[in-house]
C-alpha cells in the first residue's frame, strides 16, 4: 500500500493554505461581529409567573385569525428557535400569513426550582397562560401549538382540558416513547434519573448538551466547525452559524422533579400512550382529545423519530386529524427553507380554516361568566 499523501504534499500545502486563509477571514468577521440578534420579531409581555413569561407577538396583518394560537415550546433549549433569524423565522412567517400568536418562555430554572413538577408546569403555568389568552381574546377555546417536549405537554394538556382548545397542532413531539429509532430513547432506559435529580436538583443544561452532541459526535463536535471554516466567505453565513450556536448551547437547566417524572413515566415506562399517566392527581386519557389535530414530524429526525410522533393520531378520538411531514431533521423544521416555504403556509392554512367563528361566538363571554363556569366545573 502506498501513502496517498506523500506524493500529494503540494496538494496538502495548498489545502492547508486555503484553510488558513479562510481562518483569517473568519477571524476578521468574528472580530467585527457585534452582538447577534435572536428572536427579533416584536412582541409584548402580557403575563408572568415565577420565571415563566407569556408574550404576545404584534400581529402583522390588519385582521388576524380570530382565534389566537398559543405556542408551547420545550423546557430544553429556548423558544426563540422559532424566530432565530429574521429571514428564516417560522413565527414571522405565520404572523405574515395572518395568525395571532402568543408564546410561552419557560425561563431558566435556578436551584430553587428543583421541586417544580410536571403538575406545576401543565396544570399551573400552562393552564394559567391558556386562561390569559382566552381572557384576552374573549374566547372559550383557543388554538394550541406544542413543539418538541412542548408538544408532549400540549397533548397532555389537551387531554386534561379539551374544553379550552379549539385546535391542536403538535410539531416533532414525542408521544410513544417505546422506540429504538432515536438514541435518546435507547439511552434513557438506563439513565439513573432518580440519582441525578437527588444529587443535582436542577439538571444543568450543559449535561443535557453532552447527551445531544454525543448523538452525532464527529459531525457536531468537529465537522460542523470545519464546515464553518469552509463557508466563512460571507458574513451572513458566520452570523447565522453563531446564532444557531447560541441557541444550541443556550440551554436552561431542568427542574428536578419535572424531569424525573418525564424520564421515568414517559421515556422509561411509556405511560402517556398507554393512557396510564397521571399529572398531579389527574389521569391523562388521550381519548379525551377530540379537537382537530395536526401532527407534524420530520422524516430524518434523530431526536424525536417519526415512530415516536405518529402513534398520537391513533390514540385520540378526534375525527379531523392529519399528518404533515417534512424532509430533514429536528432543527430543520424551524429554519430550513422548506420550513419557510411549505410548513408555515400549511400550518397557517390548516389553522385558519378551522378557526372561523360564527358571529355570536366572536362576541365572547365575560371574565365573570367564565370564572363561574370554571368554578362549576
Amino acid at each position, binding site marked *: 500500500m502506498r*501513502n496517498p499523501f506523500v506524493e500529494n504534499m503540494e496538494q496538502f500545502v495548498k489545502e492547508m493554505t486555503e484553510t488558513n486563509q479562510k481562518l*483569517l477571514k473568519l477571524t476578521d468577521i468574528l472580530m467585527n461581529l457585534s452582538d447577534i440578534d435572536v428572536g427579533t420579531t416584536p412582541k409584548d409581555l402580557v403575563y408572568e409567573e415565577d420565571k415563566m413569561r407569556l408574550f404576545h407577538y404584534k400581529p402583522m396583518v390588519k385582521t388576524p385569525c380570530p382565534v389566537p394560537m398559543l405556542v408551547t415550546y420545550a423546557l430544553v433549549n429556548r423558544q426563540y428557535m422559532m424566530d432565530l433569524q429574521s429571514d428564516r423565522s417560522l413565527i414571522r412567517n405565520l404572523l405574515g400569513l395572518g395568525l395571532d400568536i402568543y408564546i410561552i418562555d419557560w425561563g431558566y430554572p435556578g436551584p430553587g426550582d428543583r421541586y417544580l413538577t410536571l403538575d406545576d408546569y401543565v396544570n399551573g403555568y400552562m393552564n394559567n397562560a391558556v386562561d390569559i389568552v382566552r381572557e384576552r381574546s374573549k374566547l372559550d377555546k383557543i388554538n394550541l401549538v406544542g413543539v418538541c417536549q412542548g408538544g408532549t405537554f400540549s397533548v397532555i394538556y389537551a387531554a386534561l382540558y379539551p374544553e379550552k382548545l379549539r385546535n391542536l397542532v403538535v410539531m416533532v413531539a414525542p408521544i410513544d416513547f417505546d422506540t429504538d429509532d432515536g438514541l435518546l430513547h435507547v439511552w434513557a*432506559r438506563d439513565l439513573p434519573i432518580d440519582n441525578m435529580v437527588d*444529587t443535582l436538583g436542577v439538571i444543568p443544561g450543559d449535561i443535557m448538551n*453532552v447527551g445531544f452532541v454525543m448523538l452525532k459526535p464527529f459531525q457536531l463536535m468537529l465537522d460542523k466547525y470545519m464546515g464553518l471554516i469552509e463557508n466563512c466567505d460571507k458574513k451572513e453565513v458566520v452570523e447565522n452559524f453563531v446564532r444557531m*450556536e447560541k441557541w444550541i448551547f443556550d440551554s436552561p437547566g431542568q427542574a428536578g422533579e419535572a424531569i424525573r417524572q418525564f424520564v421515568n413515566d414517559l421515556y422509561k415506562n411509556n405511560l402517556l400512550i398507554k393512557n396510564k399517566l397521571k399529572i398531579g392527581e389527574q389521569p391523562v386519557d388521550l381519548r379525551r382529545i377530540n379537537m382537530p389535530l395536526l401532527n407534524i414530524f420530520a422524516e430524518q429526525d434523530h431526536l424525536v423519530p417519526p415512530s415516536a410522533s405518529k402513534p398520537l393520531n391513533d390514540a385520540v378520538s378526534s375525527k379531523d386529524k392529519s399528518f404533515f411531514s417534512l424532509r430533514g431533521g429536528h432543527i430543520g423544521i424551524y429554519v430550513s427553507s422548506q420550513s419557510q416555504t411549505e410548513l408555515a403556509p400549511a400550518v397557517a392554512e390548516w389553522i385558519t380554516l378551522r378557526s372561523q367563528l360564527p358571529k355570536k361566538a366572536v362576541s365572547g363571554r365575560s371574565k*365573570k361568566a367564565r370564572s363561574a363556569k370554571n*368554578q362549576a366545573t
Partner: protein
Amino acid sequence: MATEHKWGTDFFEAWSGVQTNLMRLWADTWFGFPKATEGAEGVKESTRPWGTAGDIYNQWLNMCQEMFGEYWKRAPWGVGGQTFEKTLWGAQTYTKLYEFWANAANILSGTSPGGKGIPETYQEFCDFWLKNYNELLRGFFTFPLFEPLRGLLGSAAELPQMYADGFSKFFRPWMEAMQGLPEKAAEALKKGPQGYADVYRWWLQAYEQTWGRVLRIPPLGLARETMERVQKGNEALLNYYAAMTDYSSALYRVGTEAMQKVVTKLGEMYNKGQAPKTYKEFYTLWWTTNEEAVYELFKSPEFSRLLGQVVDNTMRLRKRYDDIMEEYLKPLPVPTRSEMNDLYKTLYLLKKEVRKNTKQVRELEEKLRTTETALGKEES
C-alpha cells in the same frame, strides 16, 4: 473613543497582515521544498527546516488559540470567542489527523528508511497505531466545550492515563505485591484501553476482597462520622474509575475499529484507482466512517448500560463529595446545599399553598358577586 477604535482596527490589521505573510512564507517554502529535494533519498519530513508542515501549521493554530483565548476571556460578548476557539480546535484536529495518517501510512508503505519486511512493517504500524491513535482520540474527546463539559468528557478520554498515574503513585506498591500483576500489566499493554479496563476490574475485585474490607472497618471515636464519609467517598471514587474505564475502553475500541475500516476502505479505493485525491476527501472518509462506527456502538443496549453506569457512579461520587464538603463547611457561617434545599422545599410548598388559597379567594369573590347580582335582579 474614536482613537481607541482606530487603534483596535490598526492592531488587528497589522496582526492579520503578519499572519498572512507568515502563511505565505510557509506555503512558498513548502511548495518549493519538495522540488528542491526531489530525488534525494532518505529525506524525511522531520529533517526539513522548521519541522513538518503540520508542525508549523499547528504552531500557528496554538498561537492563535493562546492569543485569542486570553483576549476573549476579557471580552464581554462571549459567544464569538467560543466559536472561534472551537473552530481553531476543529482545524487542529484536522491537521493532527493528517499527521497521524501520513506517519502511519509512511510506515505501512515501507517508505521508512532502511525498508523492512512485511511482518515487521505491519508490527511497526500496529505499534504506532496503538500508541498514537489513542492520543488522537484523546485530543478529540477533550475538544473545547464549555468548562464543565471538558471535565466530563475529558476525564473519559484521560482515564487510561489517570489510571496509569494512580497505579504508580498510590496503588503500585500494593499491586506489585499481588501475584500475577506483571503478566496482567503486560497483557494490558498489548490490548490497549480494553486491557486497562480488564486489569482495573481485576484489581478492583482483588482490592474489595482484601484491602477494601480492611478499609471498610467501621471507624470509632470522635472522628467516626467524618471518617466514614471519607471511606464512602473513596469507594465511590473507585467505582467511578471502574465505570469510566469500561466506558472509555468501549469508545477507544470503536475508534480503533473505525480506523481499521478506514484503512480497508482506502485500500479498496486505491485498488480501484479511486483513492482520495485531496486531504479533504480523506478527512471526510475518516469522520463519516467514525460516525457510523460510534452510532453502531451507541445504539447497542451494552453502551446504554455503560453510559448509565458512568452517570450513576458520577452522581454517587458527586453526592459523596458533597457530603464531605458539607462536613467541612459545617463550622463556617455559610449555608450548605442541604440547608438550602430545605429552604427551597419550604418556599415551594408555601408558594403552592398561597396560589391555591388565592385562587379559592378569587373564586369565592366571583361567587359572591354573582350571588349579589342575582339577588339585586330579584329585588328589582
